[in-house]
């Protein structure tokens, strides 16, 4: 048990399995069943959050954070749906434009943080407000139309596995690989661990932070595309309704990544997202009051972080 808790990534997976088991027992006791279909449903629902959280992991590991993802998701869903305008032939263009917009927002975030030296919290909050202003001004409801072909992304399955889950897995695997095996990944950890040390070691720290933000925004963009395909249209509130900004940060932290940066990784984040999703489904099955649900989620996150802090605190001393 102690060995399990010593490593946050393992701890979160242990918690995940425990929650699944307890959830399954509770649901069974309640007279329901927890089927493979439910598991697949969990995948389906957590894919969008999962993709955003993987991006958020990059930003947080680099010692930053991104509060603009929720509004960016809304913006991307609208840009994509409007560009597609119901035509399958427009899909490619729409995806390129949507990701282009995302990358641009990430670039702005990164440049404001590094060159103007604005704290990430304020910088990305500012960008979030700017996007909100644009959205409020231009839209007052869903707009654009996503062709049926593109809706496959949100609903189709390959065998029992939803395409959305595969997309999430691919993004997570890609970022995991990036962090573990590339120079960029090593430098993300270095910059998040200590910017000054990284700089004095010859790392061009600004570039690393900017790149992390661009990738984080791209992930949000992918999530935005996924949500647009589900809705069949773009919606100015799809990102904020899902609470993707704070929720993604919560998932990252639940997965054992240090909010201050430099420690953690994608594997933990995936576990964190799944844990939140499993909790959700168990509560849904049990038809628990939604306020109580939030209370439990809040407690879980705080307890998890407290446990990690204890472990790392003791090792440092």
């Amino acid at each position, binding site marked *: 048990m102690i060995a399990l808790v010593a490593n946050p990534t393992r701890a979160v997976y242990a918690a995940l399995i425990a929650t699944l088991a307890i959830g399954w027992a509770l649901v069974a006791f309640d007279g329901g069943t927890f089927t493979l279909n439910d598991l697949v449903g969990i995948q389906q629902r957590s894919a969008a959050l999962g993709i955003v959280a993987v991006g958020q992991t990059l930003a947080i590991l680099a010692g930053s954070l991104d509060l603009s993802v929720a509004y960016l998701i809304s913006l991307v869903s609208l840009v994509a749906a409007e560009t597609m305008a119901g035509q399958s032939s427009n899909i490619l263009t729409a995806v390129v434009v949507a990701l282009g917009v995302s990358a641009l927002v990430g670039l702005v975030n990164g440049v404001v943080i590094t060159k103007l030296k604005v704290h990430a919290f304020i910088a990305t909050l500012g960008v979030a407000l700017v996007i909100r202003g644009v959205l409020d001004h231009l839209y007052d409801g869903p707009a654009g139309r996503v062709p049926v072909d593109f809706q496959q992304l949100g609903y189709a399955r390959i065998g029992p596995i939803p395409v959305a889950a595969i997309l999430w897995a691919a993004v997570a695997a890609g970022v995991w690989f990036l962090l573990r*095996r590339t120079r960029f990944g*090593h430098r993300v950890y270095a910059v998040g661990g200590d910017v000054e040390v990284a700089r004095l*070691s010859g790392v061009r720290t600004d570039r690393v932070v900017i790149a992390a933000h661009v990738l984080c925004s791209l992930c949000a963009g992918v999530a935005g595309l996924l949500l647009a395909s589900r809705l069949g249209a773009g919606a100015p509130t799809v990102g904020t309704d899902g609470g993707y900004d704070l929720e993604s940060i919560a998932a990252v932290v639940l997965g054992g990544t240090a909010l201050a940066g430099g420690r953690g990784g994608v594997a933990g984040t995936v576990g964190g997202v799944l844990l939140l999703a499993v909790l959700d489904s168990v509560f849904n099955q049990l038809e628990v009051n939604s306020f109580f649900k939030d209370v439990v989620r809040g407690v879980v996150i705080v307890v998890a972080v407290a446990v990690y802090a204890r472990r790392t605190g003791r090792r*440092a001393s």
Partner: protein
Amino acid sequence: MLRMTGIGKSFLGIRVLRGIDLSATAGEVHAVVGENGAGKSTLMKILAGVHQPDEGTVEIGGQIRSFAHPVEAQRAGVAIIYQEFNLLPERSVADNVFLGREPTRRGLVDRAAMDEATSRLLDELDEHSFGPRHLVKDLSVAQQQVVEIVKALSVDARIVVMDEPTAALAEHEVDLLYRLIRRLQGRGIAVLYISHRLREVFDLADRVTVLKDGAHVATVAATDVTTAGLVKMMVGRELDAYFPPRAEESAIGEVLLTVRNGGNGKLDGIDLDLRAGEIVGVAGLQGSGRSSLVKAVFGAEPFTRGEMTPTRPGSVRAGVAAGIGLVTEDRKAEGLALNQSVRDNALLVARAIGHRSRAAVSDLLERVKLAPPRQETEVKYLSGGNQQKVVLAKWLTVSPRVLLFDEPTRGVDVGAKAAIHDLMRELADSGTAILMISSELPELIGMSDRIIVLRDGRVAGHLPAGSAEESVMALAAADGVAA
């Protein structure tokens, strides 16, 4: 190989360097000495591309270079070991060594190559106590210093700068460093060596450059100058090389603190009496539990077994309230609020415990000889030695009855060192009990009224004032294994 000419630099309108010339040839060890705040580290940071000079030029291998970023200096063959540690605690040794220059194979980081190269360098240094995959946070301070050195070596450097590399090393590790420097020299590398320990300067250097108040005083061949002469150039006056006189038997008063059979995770069976008016030295090798002992007495990592009077601090606050102060070994992490001003730091303890009679900060800074005594400067901008003086000032505000010093003069210049020694003795004479750890044996022996030697977390023995270095070492290193 290297020629720096007319270097000048100001920070926020305050001039810290002017008209500095410094050169080094291949295979030369060139020492740079001067008081705290003289500008040694700043000059090296200019060479390393961390700061850009306001005036003057840097020439390497006959070519004028200007570095906008440390990475450019690195590529030009400059490697530097900074005065303050520059490692990522959460990353492995190999990751740290190759940070910013990770070798790649087909575009991917080649971990095997990193590990192998790191192992080879560690072998070269005869360092077998840890490997490339260990996390830096699990290493001791001395081991971390070795990692810094390996990091500098792994760059194919033509110029290696060492800014007080021995400050954190034990005696036998210093020998290792010497050998290493000789090897670098043999390879035709120019070594710039900064240290406050003049013995090292004479052991190693071919030439010595003296800086004072940001100006160039002299560059001389090491053979053409004596220690006293060097000190005079640095300090601007003669300085006697003696420690203040020890306490008279009769001046040693009542017992202020006792520990009986104290123990915790790192210590066992500790008996200790500290009397008013005496300075007790603590000797021991790295890892013998010296720092653990002072932390336990202070309450930062309390004793879990045994008795302690008058109180048994279970927390830092309790320790401070009981009149115990600790000047820590790691001032950056444990001693100072780096983003706050000198003044705020000096008042840190007094404010924390709501101490009324705050001595005037300017008097305190004068007592610890902080120069220049700018109270509003943020502590992170102070030179290493000056930071240490601020830590001292912090405790003087509350006049503790028992004061614990962990390496009190690490990184402190000769003049200030003498001042700190005088201050410690003055405090003792006025009735404070002092417990002092020092890895510098001459200091330990010169200052202590008696010496406690620790080994593996236990008291290995007691020695009287003025014992020989050999007897201390023999006791510290079990069964006579030379350390």
